[in-house]
């Protein structure tokens, strides 16, 4: 399980409390500011032309300042189409960013991503079941519910595999995740190939490709609490994760309840990933790329890394989704394709850099 690539752990940079706070505040302010700016831009642009003043007054109106000058159609587009999409893209990106940071830390592997223990594949299989069974046509919420259940079930199975014999093994968890992912991926692929219904094929393929074009306020209302609570829990135990990365024995000697912390992080990360996947499909590379960038800039202390990965992930996906909306306007590009196009070259860069170090 040893990573080919070095991963700075929390002990390499011994940070004082004030140092951590300073980096956290500075990074948080910058990323929050950029996110706010991007959100305003995202609310202002799209295939339907809305004058910026109309967008601005509508946004201000929403927070109780002044009155919107936008026409009803413009208000509807901003409030019921663009804003829920902006919020959903941000929270999904935040979920993937923070999950990626946790998984990379726990597995001491910079190649780890949020779906490493089968959560994404489980979500895809759940979605496939919802679509192929027709449940997805009964209610628009059955698909995300099935996807979330799939994610949670996959996580549970992998945990069981890793706990067989009464001893929890991270190596078995990783390998079990790979095996379960492959198995579930095969089910998904087999369903696509074997189904006689081309409509089912299309729905599965497009759902898996990831996107926010169907985002609604209801989606945000369901996904946000799960992701926010999960993220807060992981940030709360971030200090213990730092100690855990030094060594489990040392962490134990410092009073860390190793199993509890590790399982809390794994379950929280998996569930928030599941919630993200359920409402967005599989969006590649956000959870892989963002923690790396944050680590390069702000260091490897998880007290800083995790919150900033959340903000960075949200910002990255918001930018990507905005670009996906306007680059081919009035047509759209699937955001999953766009993040993969950005993320894949970065992934190759990591591989090459890793190889160069070994030579």
């Amino acid at each position, binding site marked *: 399980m040893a990573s080919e690539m070095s991963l700075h752990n929390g002990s390499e940079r011994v940070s004082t409390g004030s140092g951590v706070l300073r980096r956290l505040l500075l990074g948080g302010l910058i990323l929050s500011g950029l996110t706010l700016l991007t959100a305003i831009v995202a609310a202002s642009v799209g295939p339907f032309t809305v004058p910026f003043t109309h967008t601005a007054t509508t946004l201000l109106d929403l927070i109780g300042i002044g009155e919107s000058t936008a026409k009803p159609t413009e208000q509807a587009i901003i409030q019921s189409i663009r804003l829920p999409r902006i919020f959903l893209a941000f929270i999904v990106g935040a979920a993937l960013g923070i999950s990626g940071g946790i998984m990379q830390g726990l597995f001491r592997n910079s190649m780890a991503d949020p779906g490493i223990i089968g959560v994404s594949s489980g979500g895809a299989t759940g979605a496939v079941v919802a679509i192929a069974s027709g449940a997805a046509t009964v209610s628009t919420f059955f698909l995300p519910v099935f996807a979330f259940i799939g994610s949670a079930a996959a996580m549970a199975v992998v945990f069981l595999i890793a706990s067989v014999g009464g001893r929890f093994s991270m190596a078995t968890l990783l390998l079990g995740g*790979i095996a379960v992912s492959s198995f579930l*991926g095969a089910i998904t692929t087999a369903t696509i190939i074997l189904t006689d219904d081309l409509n089912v094929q299309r729905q599965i393929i497009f759902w898996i490709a990831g996107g926010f074009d169907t985002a609604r306020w209801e989606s945000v209302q369901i996904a946000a609490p799960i992701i926010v609570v999960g993220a807060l829990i992981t940030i709360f135990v971030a200090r213990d994760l730092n100690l855990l990365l030094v060594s489990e024995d040392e962490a134990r000697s410092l009073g860390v309840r190793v199993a509890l912390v590790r399982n809390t992080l794994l379950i929280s990360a998996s569930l928030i990933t599941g919630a993200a996947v359920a409402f967005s499909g599989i969006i590649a590379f956000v959870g892989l790329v963002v923690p790396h960038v944050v680590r390069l800039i702000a260091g490897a202390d998880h007290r800083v890394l995790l919150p900033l990965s959340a903000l960075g992930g949200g910002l990255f996906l918001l930018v990507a989704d905005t670009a996906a909306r306007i680059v081919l306007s009035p047509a759209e590009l699937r955001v999953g394709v766009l993040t993969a196009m950005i993320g894949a070259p970065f992934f190759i860069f990591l591989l090459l850099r890793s190889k160069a170090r070994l030579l």
Partner: protein
Amino acid sequence: MMGVRGVVVLMVALVAMFVVACGGDDEVATSVPVEPTATVQVAAEPEATAVPATEVPADVEPVSTVAVVPTEKPVATVAPVATKAPVATVEPVEAFDESRFSDVEGIVDPTNFGWPRSIETSEGVITLDAPPTRIHSLSLGHSEILAALVDFDRLTAVYSFFVDEEQSNIAKLSASATMIGFDPEEVVALEPEVIVASRFTNADTVALMKGAGIPVARTSLENSALGNVPNILLMGYMIGAEAEAIALADELEARMQFISDVLASDESPRVLSVSKWTSAFAAGSGTTEGGIIEQAGGINAAADSGIEGHQQVSIESIAAVNPDVIIVPQPLDGANAFIEELTSSPALAQVPAVKNGEIYYVPPRYHTTLSHWNVRGIERLASLLFPSHFSGVTFEDFEHWSEK
């Protein structure tokens, strides 16, 4: 880790495959049954003007005031105002006008109507010693054309999606035919004398068939109804059904001329063809649906807005395109839900199509295949767009061609 990424990469590849398939149309590619573009069925009533087609039973033909019986010869010129759409006779014709084949690309010797005869397609020259009695088609569009030209039992087998009444115009015929999967071995085992492939057929599949010693003719299927006339004539020549091919081509041309004459002086409404498969996709330039819109006298609003091929769109995109009419060529269940979503969206409230109730479900089997059946989509859409012009006019399906 690789498993997860492998799944993602595989899915992206599948999406790419599907997008390619969407750009074309019906097709049996490699081992995945990728159909042309859409998938649906049922039709809007020609008489309907503002009623969502969801209220129209799938099997109900347009209400007619004039019975049309397929007993007429194709009519070369049709008066602008008519009460009966031109329909050809299906009676076998002994003699035929050989000159119709003189300009058909692919016929090696246009003066040779005996056997053996040769045709040349992108897969090279093939020579047939006698009219083939065992023909295998790898695409739905070709199968629909072949079904109009020869007895259906001369086709060796069908694929599962051929029996889907929402997508296929030969569903009933296919129901009792031999059905095979997508393993090339199954095709070889049928011992066909000739295989017909389209431009969308996977190259490896074609290579395997040719490697097994089976002649393969790969002919193109076009997005425009008239564009398929040379293809119909070439296939008719290849299988020895020249008279039937001429009659079908004549009927197709006459019906298109009829539409053209009736619509000669009208302003064109902007029509958006959009379907929803988890996400919504609009049919832009170069698509079958777009071709049907234009041939029915409309302007393809998606193409007019710069969309090429089939592209994902959002509700906001539809508002930006601002169509006068929206047609939804997808299966009825999905179409109903999508139409409901469109009509209830506040963002679309001022879009003319929504405001005036001009959103229609249209039968996907007419809009997403690539064969003479596209003419039915054109006729029905023209009737929807210009109801006053087609009042009292009814159109025949092409069933009479395949009920021989």
